[in-house]
């Protein structure tokens, strides 16, 4: 029963991931007073791309083709580690969040390499920014998790999520706020959203993630988009799971609640994107270091 539900959650993640993009776009459109693209636009794009042919640069090697797919595999593997809706993840063990984070690192590694494989200076630029910002965001994420560990005494993501009950807000409100903010910033930067990166600009000089995949086309590009969506989903799950304390233990109540909170997260992202401008690239490190400081602050509060 449990396992089947866990698998259901897994499938839910795979299915619903691109929806977040749709919600974000719709929110932005709402704020901008446009009709905006359909909610399922992302699905259409991915589907279209998967059924297209591909164009490869002559300078690329097998890495360029294989990178996105292996990276996708890494994200899929990571997805199995994330709990959802008050249920433990399909695979949960002490320190699983480390594996999660480093699996995302693997996908980033491959994506960056396939970007460099083209020899294009723009993609090199994007890759360089990508590794820079991720190197700065990882400490923030891990120290935030350390704070949670210290408070809940759990070393597994699932246990942490299960342990975040409403009482947590009452006891350790400030800590949750700090951790939440830190995780939110990491979430934004890892998924290349404003204020770190602007996914739908068309000036390559300013882009990070988008510029890395300039040369990918067809199924490769489609899978890249999909794994990006999946990554956003599972990071969102982590954020929501750690911050939103809805665990009644009643499944048909918990799962919708989790879904709802994911949607709210997407809306929040949309609001942020439509209310803020992208900060200058030079200031992104400050933002991430700020996130790190927040989580260190959280640790200090816990240790106190």
């Amino acid at each position, binding site marked *: 029963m449990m396992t089947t539900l866990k698998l259901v959650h897994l499938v839910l993640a795979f299915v619903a991931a691109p929806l977040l993009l749709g919600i974000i776009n719709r929110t932005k459109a709402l704020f901008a007073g446009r009709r905006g693209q359909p909610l399922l636009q992302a699905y259409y794009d991915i589907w279209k791309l998967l059924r297209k042919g591909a164009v490869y*640069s*002559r300078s690329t*090697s097998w890495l360029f083709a294989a990178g996105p797919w*292996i990276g996708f595999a890494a994200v899929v593997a990571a997805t199995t580690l994330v709990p959802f809706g008050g249920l433990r993840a399909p695979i949960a063990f002490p320190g699983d969040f480390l594996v999660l984070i480093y699996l995302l690192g693997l996908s980033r590694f491959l994506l960056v390499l396939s970007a460099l494989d083209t*020899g294009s200076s723009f993609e090199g630029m994007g890759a360089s920014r990508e*590794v820079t910002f991720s*190197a700065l965001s990882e400490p923030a994420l891990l120290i935030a998790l350390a704070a949670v560990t210290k408070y809940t005494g759990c070393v597994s993501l699932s246990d942490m999520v299960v342990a975040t009950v409403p009482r947590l807000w009452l006891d350790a409100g400030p800590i949750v706020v700090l951790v939440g903010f830190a995780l939110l910033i990491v979430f934004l930067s890892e998924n290349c959203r404003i204020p770190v990166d602007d996914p739908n600009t068309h000036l390559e000089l300013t882009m990070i993630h988008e510029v890395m995949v300039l040369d990918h086309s067809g199924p490769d590009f489609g899978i890249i988009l999909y794994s990006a969506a999946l990554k956003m989903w599972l990071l969102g799950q982590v954020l929501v799971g750690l911050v939103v304390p809805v665990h009644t233990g009643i499944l048909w109540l918990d799962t919708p609640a989790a879904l709802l909170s994911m949607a709210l997260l997407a809306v929040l992202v949309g609001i942020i994107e439509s209310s803020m401008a992208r900060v200058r690239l030079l200031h992104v490190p400050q933002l991430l270091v700020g996130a790190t400081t927040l989580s260190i602050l959280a640790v200090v509060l816990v240790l106190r």
Partner: protein
Amino acid sequence: MSLFLCGLVVLFVGGVVSLLSGRKPAMASSLGAGSAVVGSLLAILPAFAVLASGRTESLRMNWNVPLGSFFVQIDPLSAVFLLPILGLSALAAIYGAEYLWPYRQEKNLGVPWLFYNLLVAGMALVVVARNGLLFLVAWEMMSLASFFLVTFEYERQMVRQAGGIYLVATHIGTAFLIVFFILLGAHVGSLDFDTIPAVPSSLAGALFLLAVVGFGTKAGFMPLHVWLPHAHPAAPSHVSAVMSGVMIKTGIYGLVRTVTLLGAPAAWWCWVLIAIGVVSGIMGVLFALAQHDLKRLLAYHSVENIGIITMGLGLGLLGVHIHSPTLAVLGFAGGLFHVINHAIFKGLLFLGAGAVLQGSGTGHIDLLGGLVKRMPWTAAAFLVGSIAISGVPPLNGFVSEFLIYLGAFKSGIVGGLDAAIAAVIVIGSLALIGGLALACFTKAFGTVFLGHPRSIHAQQAHEVGWAMKSAMVILAALCVLGGVLSPLIVRSAQTVVGQITSLAPDAVETELATASSTLTHFVVVALLLAAVAGLSLLLRRRLLRGRSVREAVTWDCGYAAPDSRMQYTATSFAQPLTDLFRFLLHTHKEVRSPQGVFPPDSALETDTADVCEKHLYQPVFEAIRWSLGWFRWLQHGRLQVYVLYIALTLWILLIWKLV
């Protein structure tokens, strides 16, 4: 034990014979490499036996020098270090046989092989020696042999300078070790380790510091690391692999051995180790980011990994101190496992760098590119090594870091206040190091092997021969195995961890059992990853079947003729990070930015000299030299003055002593 000694004898005899047959290069290299392989394999068997059984083999013979005795012993700790030392040495020997071949014209190949075998024998002897004098002799034998290997191409000024720095550094380190061993065996009359009495805590602190400096110089702790970035690029690549992969680990071995000898650790020892680990790790990877020379970059990464290992040891020691078996076991297990893993992937990377060096003729990253097409084997092996050293799953590099993380999270965080602080520091720096290492190796691999060739060297690169390839492939396979078999490996670490932490065997047993079950989960995820990867690649093929797959130039935003010099260079790739950490790196920039309506050619040069070397050692030595040089007027060749010295001495003594 007899087998072990046989191995040493084979190494020694083989080296000498190869030296004598130096006239015939083929014979010399085959003899040297062959004896190195055979000797290492002979000597590695007892190590396996000891690890399997947990029994220690020892042999004590009389050695007729003052205070000396030939007392050797293989206990689990020695065995754990013997495995990488001998294994990597054997592989590197196979590699070296081909790598040194081009030098057969101008050099006597017997010489490097003699010193190589001496180096291997010295390292093996260091980890089994149980007598202070024997240890020092083996230690110096190791250092001298490696020095002569580093200066193999002594015609080049840069190599000579590197050799000089290395020799001086290691000699000064040894001076500390001499004092260390004398203090350790003071008033006992013999320097055998088993006769050493319990050290008083007052002395223990001093001994620990001496050991940290003495062994740390060899291990390459920041700021004692200055010789590393010079020596590793200078040495032949298989030697760099051995030196960086295992020789510097003898320093770690010495430190661990010291800890076992000194008894209960004080709190500040742990803090010292953790601090060293953090500084070495972060600074090491930062300096690596700023390098342009492939082997120099790898050398700095050795500093970084030594830092990670030291963090693990520090956590383990802290665990022993606060009586937290989880922290102790995980810390030491992680540290030691990382010793082995680093030996594997750093050896692999240096061999790969050597292959690039020999295939293309240059080690300068910004002159390379696109080698993945010309040197596919090397590229694949190097890719595996890069993934492993960046500490991302599913390879071995991740596992050992994971253990250290796990210790920090499971026991450090929930432990007492200072344990929690230490844990948070370690977690934060490990995370930062991981990210930076990823950046550094995407830079290295991407620039060297991907994109367009940036120079004629890269265009004319060619793949290396089977000997070098096979060594690299084996090491790459070991990287994978180290990740997949990690549960078994960790489980088998019981005896050695028990020996270091001196915890109850069953406690260690349970801890390791839990750790290995955790790792089993990880392995499941890794296999899942592999499966999904395979499937998705199949899916890709399925999707592309029957669809049009065209080739074109790289989309470069409208440039008609993209050319290889437009590519992002390694320097520019690392620029955001190096600029971010400017305040630590002090990178020197030469900028000629384009000016005017028709700008002339512009240029950018960056050079990141080692901070410690430039701002710490050079000034100190200059000051000493200057202040001593000031005294030189004392002897200016005038006879009268000389006689005056005699008279004055006489007077002073008479008046001083007869009063």
